[in-house]
């Protein structure tokens, strides 16, 4: 079983490292999930995580990359609405990695 220990509690993950129970997310869980991706969370990461969580709260859908870029541009300013900015923060597959750390399901249209 894929799992992490955070502050004495066991948090179960699926095969790809996404939370099995989204309610188990906390900022400490995010820090631990990020550590597994070799990411040290800073203010700019948290901006994206908060953006993703409020998007999901409203629509119950994790946004695909193009939509995340657009949202970041609208909510955080144009210079942050770029794939490069997101790639720098969440290398590899930003929408997928950031959703994972934000405790959301994998974006449905993410291969």
């Amino acid at each position, binding site marked *: 079983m894929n799992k992490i220990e955070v502050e004495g509690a066991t948090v179960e993950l699926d095969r790809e490292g996404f939370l099995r129970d989204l309610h188990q997310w906390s900022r400490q869980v995010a820090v631990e999930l990020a550590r597994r991706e070799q990411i040290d969370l800073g203010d700019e990461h948290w901006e994206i995580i908060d953006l993703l969580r409020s998007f999901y709260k409203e*629509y119950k*859908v994790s946004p*695909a*990359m*193009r939509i995340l870029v*657009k949202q970041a541009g609208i909510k955080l300013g144009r210079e942050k609405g770029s794939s490069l900015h997101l790639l720098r923060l969440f290398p590899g597959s930003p929408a997928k990695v950031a959703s994972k750390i934000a405790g959301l399901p994998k974006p449905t*249209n993410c291969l």
Partner: protein
Amino acid sequence: MQEADKSLLVVVRHGPYQGQLAREALDAVLTAAAFEQPVSLLFMDDGVFQLTPNQDGSAIDAKNLATMLAVLPMYDVDRVYVELDSLNLRAISPESLTLPATPVGGHALRDLFVNNAHLLSF
């Protein structure tokens, strides 16, 4: 070389909580939209119930589908249609729908099927 026509029509014909069909349809639409493919969405038959307000899927642990459909404008999916007869048969007024959907019937309905290269029915 001429580009292949990738235009896609997704037809939704089942109610919001009849199995996973509604979710699958939304996934297909969002996937096409995420890759900037031209996609149109048509609600007909019991599919029009997906656009009705005050849905509550909590008894079967399902997410509110109307909430999820609200994401479509974020994905720039603006070609959303609803078949007029299906609405009338179920006494649903076009004004009450949760998404701005264009009511279609007759020729406009036929054109939707004729003018899109690919069809997915859910």
